[in-house]
């Protein structure tokens, strides 16, 4: 075991993948000598060479297309999008070409690509550096969407993503890169895609959440325990597509109340999908309507008020109170 930041854990996963599989390649803007703008690929070009860890020209659609072509030829590309807001330039590859390769070829071809991008607010970054676009991605058939909340999961889930034969979008919350340290095994291990994790047991209400909101929700759960005498269960979804229906349903059946917390804007996305899953599978177990705590239906691009924009413990505790007192 070693103590690592999340960005170090991500770096470690890619180092192991490059070491173990000659078909793994990393490319993107400034990922080589510079090691990426957050140093996620720090030292990897020096260790594995410029043919496996490459700076590309500044063109996201080029990066996406390169990944699809290499994937088709049996390579395992890890394609970095420098910030989430720049995926729009590459959406044809991310949302069409890569995820449709398998079905278009009747299962003959595949796209074993891992797209990675930092996302999320709380570090005062400029417009288009902090958006939460997972709602867009989970609407896309054929791609999996993964979002770790801590260094251990980040390394294990990234190794699973790289090994996966379908394309995976791996979302790295900016606020967690350096702020959070955790114990991480130095060797290879995987955390399975599609499995949520109950990170806090409770009996009164379940919060379903992911990414940085896991930590805000954990704090809110503690406050609710102290101030409201409520035992809050917290489920870290870890994979946003496909959702872990089994874990979601069994938690709702246990607590009979649910809240979904997402940093993303309110309309469409993970929260409404999760609520649909609950409606379809556990409606009669519910003692109260499911609540969502989310950002507002505006862009998140104004660092000066992002602290008010992003869901905070107060908003979550309010929701706990409302749901429990329904």
């Amino acid at each position, binding site marked *: 075991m070693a103590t690592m930041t999340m960005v170090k854990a991500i770096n470690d996963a890619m180092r192991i993948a490059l070491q173990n599989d000659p078909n793994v390649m990393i490319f993107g803007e400034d990922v080589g000598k510079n090691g990426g703008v957050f140093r996620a690929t720090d030292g990897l070009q020096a260790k594995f060479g410029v043919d496996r860890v490459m700076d590309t020209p500044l063109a996201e659609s080029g990066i996406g297309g390169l990944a699809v072509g290499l994937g088709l030829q049996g390579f395992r590309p890890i394609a970095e999008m420098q910030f989430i807001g720049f995926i729009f330039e590459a959406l044809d590859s991310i949302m069409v070409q890569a995820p449709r390769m398998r079905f278009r070829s009747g299962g003959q071809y595949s796209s074993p690509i891992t797209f990675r991008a930092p996302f999320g607010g709380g570090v005062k970054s*400029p417009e288009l550096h902090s958006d939460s676009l997972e709602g867009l991605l989970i609407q896309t058939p054929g791609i999996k969407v993964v979002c770790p909340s801590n260094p251990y999961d980040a390394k294990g889930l990234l190794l699973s993503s790289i090994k996966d034969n379908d394309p995976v979008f791996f979302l790295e919350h900016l606020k967690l890169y350096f702020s959070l340290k955790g114990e991480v095994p130095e060797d290879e291990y995987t955390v399975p895609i599609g499995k949520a994790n109950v990170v806090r047991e409770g009996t009164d209400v379940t919060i379903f959440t992911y990414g940085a909101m896991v930590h805000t929700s954990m704090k809110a759960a503690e406050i609710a325990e102290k101030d409201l005498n409520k035992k809050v269960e917290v489920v870290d979804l870890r994979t946003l597509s496909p959702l872990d229906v089994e874990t979601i349903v069994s938690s709702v059946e246990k607590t009979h109340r649910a809240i979904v917390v997402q940093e993303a804007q309110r309309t469409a996305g993970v929260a409404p999908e999760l609520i649909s899953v609950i409606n379809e599978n556990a409606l009669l177990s519910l003692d109260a309507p499911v609540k969502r705590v989310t950002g507002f239906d*505006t862009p998140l691009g104004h660092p000066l008020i992002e602290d008010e924009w992003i869901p905070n413990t107060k908003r979550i505790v309010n929701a706990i109170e409302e749901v429990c007192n329904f």
Partner: protein
Amino acid sequence: MAKTTKSGGGLAGAELQIQEMQAFQVLSPDGKVNEANLPELSDDQLRELMRRMVYTRVWDQRAVGLARQGRLGFYAPVSGQEASMIGSQFALEKEDFILPGYRDIPQLHFHGYPMYQGFLWSRGHQHGGQIPEDVNVLMPQIIIGAQYVQTSGVAMAFKRRGEKRIAITYTGDGGSSQGDFYEAMNFAGVFKLPAVFIVQNNRYAISTPVSKQTVAKTIAQKGLAAGIRSVQVDGMDVLAVYAAVKDARERALNGEPTLIETLCYRLGPHSMSGDDPTRYRIKDESPAYEENEPLIRFRKYLESKNLWTEEDENKVIEETKAAVAEAIKKADQYEKMSIPNLIDTVYETTPAHLEQQKQEYLAKEGK
């Protein structure tokens, strides 16, 4: 080994060759002028160009300091690019419309955009993007390449309305790799638009040197693929940049767009958000560029003509310091942003679901 095709002969004749050319220059690095290329400028105008470059340099140094103190948000330093920025804007008329990248705040400023709004934009305040009505610019673009394609749209609007004005846009060497870059020029060519496209080739896109961006010998030649006029200019030479843009502007008004590559150098970091040039700079390259930087060269020229003194320089430095101090004060005092204001600026009329989100916010957390 068997040869499958014979090279030479007919194929060689069919191979496109790009001729060697020289970047356009008016002032040599030691301040000597090439009279044949000298644009028509009065002594006052020459002094004004120098004043603006010194102003921009001092403003930049102050802004870097403010960013270090955490008093700005995103800031992309401009030192080394003054000639390219100031010279190009100086060739415009007030009615011309600028579509800038994130680094192009000086051009906006000299086109009428107040400095304090630049500071607010840097901090991420919405008012930074509220361009005063008589100022013909767009707020700085974050998405590399987007401003280029939009330029063709703005230029088409001017053409359709029969207005005598151009649209001008800026990107960097990195930006020239985007599909949008080529698409913009191609559209401008096809529709014969009054557009001028500038690439400020400052040799790096964050850490990536231009040699990894393209194997084309020049970025200027990328315009040829779109069939538009393309020139390369010494971007450390304010007179050369001015002359090239002035000429391109005239041609643009006649439906002939131009791509202009200005060769310059970013003397500072990419931005003030953790970029460390020592990780990627080619060793020993910076000193040569520092000696060649645009202010030194132009100062030498003006001094040789007795148009610039140390006193002049000091006056501008003091003037700039005061302007920056006043602008930052104004930015600090500007009304704070709020969630309700943000919500109300997403649509012309706030729809019911957003109105509800606003009311909930006001009821529970609002002030």
